[in-house]
């Protein structure tokens, strides 16, 4: 017997019972649809002990038949909104193999409609809004949208972008920064152009490097966001992290996203096309040996532990990552209870924002044991290594979904990310 939960049929998306079962050295989701048959999907490959990773984060399964069909945050949801995503366009200047939002055109939202939505979603002084798409920079009025988000009280405005427009001229990054943009999440899949060509259709490395330089010139922090796909870039996890750390403080962190099969996908996924969170963790620690201290990537406290990890570091004067958080197994998981969305938002914003260029390393010596140097260095060179494993119709577990803190806003409704983009596989 495994742990009972609920999922959906990957074909018709109807809610069905499911079970998380340990077998063959891993953990699988078993479920059966009366119409479309039985399904078994890998969840965890046993590189890290799943029970220890989850700790005491799970309660009894939700029995509400409304979830996820009638999704929009409801009293059964267990987490508040940490980050809210607003789609500002469906247009995109790339045609990627995988795209959760599936791009592909459609009517462009009017500025007035987006401004009204920003007003609805904002909690003045608190909200972290992600302007997403499509590719948001395809909108000529993006700087005005950033300014509108700030005007209605959003505390942080994040841009999710492939970086191509940012690479074109430094003045564009300046315009966004002047409008109030806080930081950029930049798609960045590898240190080798062959990876970009396979995933995004063309070599992009030089453009990404230029985009990072342009953001740096405007004091905009950049977090690199690789989509990790088996057989494409799983060998480059350490390479991406090394490059990112070498680009600190312009680059503030790396946010790994194992591929999820939402929206546009090349084919229904087999287990070989999945890269589980524990595989990512093990691969990253192995490939980044000597740079990334082992055991410092911790289960998400804000979302479900199977949905992500986070590590908090400072890039030392020797170019290595010095850990700020406690090691795994030292009381850092399970016993501390979940973080609130407010706590998480404050944490990520503190790291992803670049401080104004004041109070820089005024201490006598560049030694992290010096209290003054440490304090200023963490502000300027704080660095996060994080991951988010989105769920799709194959591996969706409603208990994980209930803990989601990343919500898409769509005309009055806040919807957990993986519920909003959930899409059925072809039968």
């Amino acid at each position, binding site marked *: 017997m495994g742990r009972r939960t609920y999922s959906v049929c990957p074909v018709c998306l109807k809610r069905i019972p499911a079970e998380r079962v340990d077998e063959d050295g891993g953990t699988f989701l078993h479920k059966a649809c009366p119409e479309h048959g039985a399904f078994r999907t890998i969840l965890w490959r046993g590189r890290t002990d799943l029970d220890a990773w989850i700790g005491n984060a799970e309660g009894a399964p939700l029995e509400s038949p409304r979830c996820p069909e009638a999704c929009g945050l409801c009293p059964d949801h267990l987490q508040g909104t940490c980050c809210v995503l607003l789609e500002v366009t469906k247009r995109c200047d790339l045609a990627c193999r995988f795209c959760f939002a599936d791009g592909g055109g459609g009517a462009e939202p009017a500025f007035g409609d987006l401004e009204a939505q920003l007003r609805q979603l904002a909690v003045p002084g608190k909200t972290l809004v992600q302007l997403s798409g499509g590719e948001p920079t395809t909108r000529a009025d993006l700087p005005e949208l950033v300014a509108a988000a700030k005007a209605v009280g959003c505390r942080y405005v994040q841009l999710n972008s492939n970086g191509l427009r940012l690479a074109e001229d430094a003045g564009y990054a300046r315009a966004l920064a002047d409008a109030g943009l806080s930081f950029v999440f930049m798609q960045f899949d590898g240190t080798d152009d062959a990876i970009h060509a396979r995933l995004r259709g063309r070599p992009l490395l030089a453009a990404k490097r230029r985009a990072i330089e342009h953001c740096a010139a405007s004091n905009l922090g950049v977090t690199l966001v690789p989509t990790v796909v088996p057989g494409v870039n799983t060998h480059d996890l350490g390479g991406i992290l090394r490059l990112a750390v070498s680009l600190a403080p312009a680059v503030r962190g790396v946010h790994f996203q194992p591929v999820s099969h939402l929206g546009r996908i090349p084919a229904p996924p087999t287990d070989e096309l999945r890269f589980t969170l524990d595989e990512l963790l093990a691969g990253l620690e192995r490939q980044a040996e000597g740079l990334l201290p082992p055991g410092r990537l911790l289960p998400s406290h804000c979302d479900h532990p199977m949905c992500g990890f986070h590590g908090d570091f400072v890039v030392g004067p020797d170019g290595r990552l010095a850990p700020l958080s406690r090691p795994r197994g030292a009381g850092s998981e399970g016993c501390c209870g979940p973080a609130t969305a407010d706590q998480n938002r404050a944490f990520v914003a503190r790291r992803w924002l670049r401080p104004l260029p004041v109070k820089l390393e005024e201490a006598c010596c560049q030694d992290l044991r010096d*209290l003054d140097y*440490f304090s200023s260095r963490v502000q300027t060179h704080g660095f996060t290594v994080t991951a988010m494993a989105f769920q799709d119709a194959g591996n969706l577990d409603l208990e994980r979904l209930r803990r989601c803190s990343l919500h898409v806003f769509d005309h009055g409704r806040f919807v957990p990310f993986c519920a909003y983009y959930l899409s059925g596989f072809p039968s």
Partner: protein
Amino acid sequence: MAGERTLICHSCQLALEPRKTDFTYLGHTFYADMLRCPGCGEVFIPEELAKGRIAEVEMQMEDK
């Protein structure tokens, strides 16, 4: 530090002296100039340090 005043160690009756002092906080080892008794080694942590730089470090390291 503590302004113009001379602070005296209650046990040793010796004047505290500014010294580079190692200390461990939140699992990290730091050093800072602090007033220390040359006799027993007792350290005086002024309010401005506790509520200022140390609090700032604590906030920087606060996990989510």
